[in-house]
């Protein structure tokens, strides 16, 4: 009997706790449909939903619509995902599978850069990209990802190395007998078997670049190249809190991609976080 009561109490605690955690998001959904006058009323949902918040918010940046910003962001994300996929798996295969002089030395350097606070690099990298004329292009994002650096790049390599090491080496040996080159082994054997880890890497690459607000703020200046995050900041600044409904509506839309990724790929999320201790 007491065990049952314990169980019930625990559920009650967890239900209340989960509701408290999620409450701001529920309120957010309601608020995105409220008029400005109704926003400060305590009710969760508006008496009359203002769908115009979404329509007007979508066009609230003069001369542009959020369609442009989403296309920009998704376009950039796709390039970054492809580039990260190629570079991080190549490097991970090299570290995880091949023996070469100084490997342990390079690997410990890689581990060291995992802990390096990124903000030390912001200023010199900005100066470098500025001299190269890359400011206000997407190159400051693409090039670092091309060399397994950039937002979380080292983390991805590390995660993949751990996974590649777990794939039995006998597979390589027999493939080599069949005349398979190292690249062949990478491409035909190790890559297909690394798929779960690759999915995890892709998920976090997508999310971290979506939220790389400081990077976008630094390198993208012209509105026609703006990402969704910068556009949100822009309507926040220009409306100075006058159109909270629209602002909250557009903010809400901007978390939909992350939410969808999470809903459909939850398994990979939990595994990725748990095995590597990645920050969410």
């Amino acid at each position, binding site marked *: 009997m007491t065990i049952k009561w314990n169980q019930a109490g625990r559920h009650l605690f967890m239900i209340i706790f*989960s509701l408290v955690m999620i409450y701001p998001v529920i309120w957010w959904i309601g608020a995105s449909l409220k008029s400005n006058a109704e926003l*400060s009323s305590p009710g969760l949902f508006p008496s009359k939903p203002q769908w115009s918040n979404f329509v007007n918010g979508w066009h609230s940046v003069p001369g542009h619509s959020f369609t442009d910003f989403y296309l920009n962001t998704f376009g950039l994300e796709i390039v970054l995902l492809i580039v990260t996929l190629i570079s991080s798996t190549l490097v991970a295969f090299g570290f995880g599978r091949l023996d*070469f002089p100084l490997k342990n030395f390079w690997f410990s350097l890689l581990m060291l850069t995992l802990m390096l606070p990124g903000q030390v690099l*912001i200023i010199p990298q900005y100066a470098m990209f500025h001299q190269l004329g890359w400011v206000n292009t997407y190159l400051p994002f693409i090039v670092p990802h091309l060399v397994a650096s950039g937002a979380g790049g080292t983390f991805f390599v590390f995660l993949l190395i751990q996974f590649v090491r777990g794939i039995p080496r006998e597979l390589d040996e027999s493939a080599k007998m069949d005349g398979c080159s190292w690249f062949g082994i990478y491409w035909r054997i190790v890559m297909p078997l690394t798929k779960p880890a690759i999915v995890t890497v892709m998920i976090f690459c997508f999310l971290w670049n979506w939220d790389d607000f400081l990077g976008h703020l630094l390198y993208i200046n012209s509105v026609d190249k703006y990402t969704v995050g910068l556009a*949100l900041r822009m309507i926040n600044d220009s409306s100075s809190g006058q159109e909270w409904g629209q602002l909250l509506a557009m903010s809400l839309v901007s978390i939909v991609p992350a939410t969808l990724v999470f809903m459909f790929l939850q398994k990979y999320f939990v595994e990725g976080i748990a095995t590597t201790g990645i920050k969410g």
Partner: protein
Amino acid sequence: MSQTTTVALKTAAGTKKRKSFLSRWDAPIAGYLFILPWLIGFFGLTAYPMILSLYYSFTDYTLMEPISWVGARNYERIFTADDKFIQSIKVTFMYVIASVPLKLIAALLVAVVLNKAMKGISAYRTAIYFPSLIGGSIAVSLLWRNIFGVDGIFNKILGIFGIGATGWVTNPSTALWTLVLLTVWQFGSSMVIFLAGLKQIPNDLYEASSVDGANKFVQFFKITLPMLSPTLYFNLIMGVINAFQMFTSAYVITNGGPMNSTYVYALYLYERAFSRYQLGYSSALAWIMLVIIVVVAAIIAGTSKYWVFYETESGGKKRK
């Protein structure tokens, strides 16, 4: 299957003798080719920029004018005549000291409750993880600014309990706490890591101690906490490193104000570097930050031998 492998291995041994000089270098050359992207990245985008930034920190570099060497003058000014530096250090330490432990404690406690093989664990986990998923975005920062504004929902809820309204983000004594709360709200990702750690603790430890008459609290402090301490240690170090670099929420929610009460270090760095383009001065700031983070991490690592337990191979617990 195993038979074919043995045959294959035998043939491998046979061909090895006939391998040419070049094929002995096959793996090393291939190895370096595979890691080449990372090597370029490491030298071009990590090592070189770090040296560059160290050099900048001794100059008056501003992106426009020619660079001139100023010696240690940047550092001198930061330590002797820079009120904003002092203020941002104070704010950042307050933020780190408040947010990191609170986040870890919340993550640990909820993980322990959740770990008791409950039905619906995945639903709870989803609800609790969700804030971590979206919390870093500018969207949530905008939401936070509204919730904790004078007319925000937080004041309305307090009003129900008869607590007077205040502008949480516009009041210098509470503004930083709204940012701390936003960070703590995102404890879900740490919790998932703790849950994975809890799964590793062998059940017979609990069973044996129950036989010896240990209650839940004793078990928590004598078994759960020591067994989980390596995970806790890792989370603590990473949490501290991340907290020192907090930027987006301070920039969007309060922009450092009111009265510089949320003026975190990263914000100051950003302002010096990209509003005033004093890249030399801000490089010095960045290096000071790096040294502070390294020292704090080293202190935590130094204390770890007193509280982080590693299992020895024989299975017993032992201090490292």
